[in-house]
């Protein structure tokens, strides 16, 4: 019988969310049945994934609407899945969760009970919170992926949110980097329960025939970043570094590809730092358009404050760009300092500017060597096939 894997996400992954789309496709190719369970909203666009999609009931809206939904869920739970309902309630109570909260969790999670799954895999840490006992209730194995934000920021926003999850002995964890593995282990999760599977990219798409010579970096260096315009991407620090670099004689154009809530903040920084003539915001672009910009660029910057691993850096390396990244979480595993790029301490614009000046002074041959080594490493170690094999092994444990 085919192994059935329930993948829990907040939303159906859009076309640009390649990680989950690739993962689903890889599992299906290996003859697994994937059931996608989304907790927030039904898709606004028609997205073809070739798998069953289950949408969690919504408990938002008017009091009347919520009340009807609560009664319906409770009725369905008690009538159609009485044993599972009792089991879920008991497990919660054994974990010292109050009667009221246990009932609330039962109502919210009852829709899971009809699922016949071998694995229930929560795609982000926070998705498992409040659902810690679902997998045991439906007799599926439980897996949780941590992707950065959920490991480093969510516990600050919701103190102790993972206490119950991390106290559970039978959960398998997936993280993106060895640094994340270390930080998750620091919460008391056994090392053997944590598997590192890094992101991967389509190296058959992200590659180039262009021969990069790096002979004219001192003329006008073409610099690019692909990132959501969010504080955690460190773009304000990046702009400050570029302002210093410019003052020190660096000639460059900087393109930021992406959209997000910090657009106004960054435009203001560009204005205040007098970088209007050298910085371009393109907004969000298609993969093909991103590839075109990468093709025409020399240097890729990812000076993030917080970063699980970062696919965009892999794509830039695969395209032969010289990559400079911060030391945020997984980035110093993504790029090997001095061999496949540069890793600069975060929140230090002067250090980033110094690094750009250092690159300017390097010989083209040395730059070429670093570019070649980065391309080879990404092709060999961060390809989709390898990632798919690791996920298959993860579920075979």
């Amino acid at each position: 019988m085919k192994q059935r894997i329930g993948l829990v996400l907040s939303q159906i992954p859009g076309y640009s969310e390649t990680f989950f789309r690739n993962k689903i496709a890889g599992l299906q190719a290996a003859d697994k049945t994937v059931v996608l369970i989304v907790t927030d909203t039904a898709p606004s666009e028609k997205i073809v994934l070739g798998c069953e999609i289950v949408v969690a009931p919504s408990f938002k809206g008017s009091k009347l609407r919520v009340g009807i939904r609560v009664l319906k869920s409770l009725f369905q739970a008690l009538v159609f899945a009485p044993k599972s309902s009792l089991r879920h309630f008991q497990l919660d109570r054994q974990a010292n969760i109050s009667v009221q909260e246990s009932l609330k969790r039962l109502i919210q999670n009852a829709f899971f009970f009809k699922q016949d799954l071998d694995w229930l895999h929560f795609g982000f840490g926070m998705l498992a919170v409040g659902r810690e006992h679902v997998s045991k209730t439906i007799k599926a194995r439980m897996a949780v992926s941590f992707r950065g934000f959920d490991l480093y920021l969510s516990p600050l926003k919701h103190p102790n949110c993972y206490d119950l999850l991390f106290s559970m002995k039978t959960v398998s964890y997936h993280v993106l980097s060895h640094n994340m593995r270390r930080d998750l282990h620091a919460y008391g999760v056994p090392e053997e329960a944590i598997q590192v599977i890094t992101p991967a990219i389509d190296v058959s798409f992200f590659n180039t025939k262009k021969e990069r010579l790096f002979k004219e970096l001192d003329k006008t260096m073409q610099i690019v970043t692909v990132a959501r315009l969010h504080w955690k991407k460190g773009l304000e620090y990046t702009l400050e570094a570029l302002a210093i670099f410019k003052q020190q004689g660096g000639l460059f154009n900087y393109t930021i590809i992406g959209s997000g809530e910090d657009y106004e903040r960054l435009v203001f920084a560009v204005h205040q730092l007098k970088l209007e003539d050298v910085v371009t915001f393109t907004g969000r672009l298609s993969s093909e358009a991103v590839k075109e910009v990468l093709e025409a660029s020399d240097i890729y910057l990812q000076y993030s404050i917080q970063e699980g691993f970062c696919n965009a850096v892999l794509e830039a390396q695969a395209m032969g760009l010289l990559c400079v990244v911060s030391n945020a979480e997984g980035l110093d595993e993504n790029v090997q300092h001095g061999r496949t790029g540069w890793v600069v301490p975060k929140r230090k614009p002067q250090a980033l500017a110094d690094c750009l000046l250092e690159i300017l002074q390097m010989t083209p041959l040395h730059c070429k060597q670093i570019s070649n080594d980065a391309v080879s490493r990404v092709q060999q170690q961060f390809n989709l096939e390898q990632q798919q094999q690791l996920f298959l092994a993860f579920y075979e444990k």
Partner: protein
Amino acid sequence: MGSFLKNQDLCDHNVLKVVSIGRPHWKKGYVYALDALKLLKDLGISFQYTLIEGSGAIEFQYQVHDLELGDEVELLGKLSDNMVDEYFNNADVLLLTSLGECEFDMVLKAMAIETLVLSTNCNGINDLIINGENGFLVPIRNAQAIADTLVMIKNLPREQYNFITKTALKTIQRKF
């Protein structure tokens, strides 16, 4: 509650008390305040920083955590006027790190109770503060300059600190 500064030099204190106030918006430049305090910590200088109205912003929560400033930095919610007065009274420095508009009412409040003001050179502040005479001004987006000035303030003799804050008080008495 009176200021503990009345009888001794700042450099004799174990802890430099710094306070900021304002909603947790990027335009307030708190990122630079926290980066500056990290530089201060790396220099081995003891301080206590209170950011009133700074709670609830994950960016600052993470920065405090990331820079290991949890023991020195307190992010508070909105406080009553009385509580704000108390924090201002007990602070050695009101730190304003705005990238644009100035919080003049807070500057005036600090000057009125003789708490020293360190502000970025934000819009219009030059009309009120003359650097080194009745407060201190630093360039915007410059954590190093904030840190250097805080170190300098910490090393001010008591008489000079008092002279500056009294000059500040006279400034607002004259202007308003």
